């Protein structure tokens, strides 16, 4: 028989160590799932099927966690609670990821190649090195965003947005810049649309894929650790 408390705690996304109130909720829900499992076993259903059905009785565990939080907090404080929740699960992890990614890019740019440098190797594509190193390191920031969001109890969609946050911001900033240039100096971009799209590709889409890779690796590690 599984450890019902651990199973419910994992699915609700409760951060360790749980508070006393969270522990009580986990124990109560675990008791319910256990009763359901035993009822199913009593009907002659196999052990693995009974566990699957008892746990599967709740389709959306994160939704349940959210509803419990709302019920405990009460209607009058619901909006402030959900605002705090959003700050913890989306804005904070997203902004941490964005800041870390940008600071890292700045360090790479300042610490490596400079326009004043001379040497034949400057024409060998090494100028791309800071960008490549930055791009390769993006999975770390994607994983960090997902970890921080999940730790704060973020739902899968929020967690995805938090991990992709740096790329989303870059995408927005890039197109705002393009729009400003189009409005003020249309002639400068009218013949350079391929470059505009290349910019979006290099500063938003590729980093986004890299962040996504980090998130997937983090989730896979989590699932392996759980199983």
């Amino acid at each position, binding site marked *: 028989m599984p450890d019902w408390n651990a199973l419910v705690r994992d699915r609700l996304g409760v951060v360790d160590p749980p508070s006393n109130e969270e522990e*009580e*909720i986990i*124990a*109560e*829900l675990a*008791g*319910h*799932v*256990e*009763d*359901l499992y035993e009822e199913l076993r009593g009907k002659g259903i196999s052990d693995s099927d009974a566990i699957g059905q008892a746990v599967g*009785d*709740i*389709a*959306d565990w994160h*939704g*349940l966690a959210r*509803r*419990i939080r*709302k*019920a*405990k907090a*009460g209607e009058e404080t619901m909006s402030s609670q959900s605002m705090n929740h959003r700050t913890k699960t989306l804005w904070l992890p997203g902004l941490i990821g964005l800041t870390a990614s940008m600071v890292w890019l700045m360090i790479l740019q300042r610490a490596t190649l400079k326009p004043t440098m001379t040497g034949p190797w400057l024409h060998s594509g090494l100028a791309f090195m800071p960008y490549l190193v930055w791009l390769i390191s993006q999975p770390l920031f994607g994983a960090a965003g997902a970890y921080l969001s999940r730790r704060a109890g973020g739902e899968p969609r929020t967690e995805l947005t938090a991990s992709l946050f740096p790329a989303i911001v870059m995408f927005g900033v890039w197109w705002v810049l393009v729009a400003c240039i189009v409005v003020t100096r249309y002639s400068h971009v009218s013949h350079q649309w391929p470059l505009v799209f290349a910019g979006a590709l290099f500063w938003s889409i590729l980093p986004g894929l890299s962040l996504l890779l980090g998130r997937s690796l983090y989730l896979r590690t989590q699932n392996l650790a759980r199983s």
Partner: protein
Amino acid sequence: MLKRIRANVARGSTELVILSLLAEQPLYGFEISRRIEERTDGALRFELASLYPMLYDLERRGLVRGQWQPSRTGRDRRYYSLTPKGKTQLAPLRREWRSFFQALDCLAGVSDA
């Protein structure tokens, strides 16, 4: 608007059902859900996901109280019982629903002849 009315009706009826059951005797979550299913011949089914948020909401509002006690199976379960405030609230709630069904019956003839 219609969705909001539906949600309010569902919420109000859930509240009435739980308070009425707890007025008879203290029960824990799983027992509440099974009792509802048995009494209504399976017409009403309360899943864990809707039951516990409602119980916690009732508890926060002081209408029910949860206490850990050993169950009939020997394991500790959180038994819910009606508080004095919950008992006071139940009578007007029943009256409200009775008037609602009478009004609905007048308009739509929903009760058996």
